[in-house]
């Protein structure tokens, strides 16, 4: 099993993702530079957070045209698991591998703090063993995490089980107060229709050790570990 972590100029959570996968979960992990057009022998891809290309133009807008993204698109179309975290989520949106768009946080401030999350579906390779009754304690760190979807798209996401994570309060209630950035319907993460491409604003790779405040992020990496163990 081998997971590839993409690296763009301006990625800054690539080493955190590598650490979580390789050192915490013991999964063979390699970095893939954005100029590569060949993903090599990988079974899943993580697009990490950061500020690819300095967020010029729009977050993720330029990174999506990096050579590696063509390969990611074809990998995803064959059912390959892809997880985009924070800026990685923004890149997946710009690449149209996920629907909707990202706007500046409603309060116009960069927000870096632990939030509560509820996992809404176990059908993705990254959430298959996340306990849906557990309130996940995972940090966010973004200035543009205000997910926007119009009414039709929200309905589609709900009907097709594409909402993966929602911001909630400490008891799991999806309330306006628990929404840290103004995202439509408290959406924190979504997947494509087939469920193999997942994007999320919170950072599970920053929550893999209790000493750092939480290890709830491990549920996601355990999920992909188990998924790949059974599918390869």
């Amino acid at each position, binding site marked *: 099993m081998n997971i590839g972590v993409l690296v763009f100029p301006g990625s800054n959570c690539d080493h955190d993702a590598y650490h979580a996968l390789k050192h915490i979960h013991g999964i063979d992990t390699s970095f893939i530079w954005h100029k590569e057009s060949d993903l090599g022998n990988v079974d899943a891809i993580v697009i990490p957070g950061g500020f690819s290309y300095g967020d010029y*133009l*729009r977050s993720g*807008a*330029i990174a999506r*045209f990096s050579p590696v993204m063509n390969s990611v698109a074809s990998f995803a179309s064959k059912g390959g698991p892809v997880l985009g975290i924070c800026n990685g989520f923004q890149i997946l949106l*710009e690449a149209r591998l996920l629907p*909707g*768009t990202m*706007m*500046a*946080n*409603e*309060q*116009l401030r960069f927000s870096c703090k632990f939030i509560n999350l509820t996992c809404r579906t176990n059908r993705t390779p990254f959430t298959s063993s996340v306990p849906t009754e557990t309130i996940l304690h995972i940090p966010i760190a973004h200035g543009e995490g*205000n997910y*926007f979807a*119009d009414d039709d798209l929200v309905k589609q996401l709900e009907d097709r089980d594409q909402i993966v994570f929602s911001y909630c309060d400490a008891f799991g209630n999806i309330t306006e107060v628990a929404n840290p950035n*103004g995202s439509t319907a408290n959406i924190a993460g979504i997947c494509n229709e087939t469920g193999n491409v997942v994007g999320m604003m919170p950072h599970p790779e920053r929550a893999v050790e209790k000493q750092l405040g939480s290890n709830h992020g491990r549920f996601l990496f355990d999920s992909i570990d188990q998924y790949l163990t059974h599918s390869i």
Partner: protein
Amino acid sequence: MQVDIIITLRESILDPKGKASRHALENLGFREITEVRIGKFIQLEIDTDDPGEARKLAEQACEKLLANAVMENYEIRIPDNA
């Protein structure tokens, strides 16, 4: 040939930067300013003398990269040909 592009958020999309600026202007006493929308201005230099061709290329650039059609509108202006 110079081509100017103005990108604005679609009407239906909340513009938090515009909203914050409007409030600041209101605090400064500009009570007549009832709305502020903030967008982007992009200037292209295109190697052609044909305004039609320049417009077509600028349009493609907007569709492919410069604007995000989900939330933005774009307007192409060719100053020499205005």
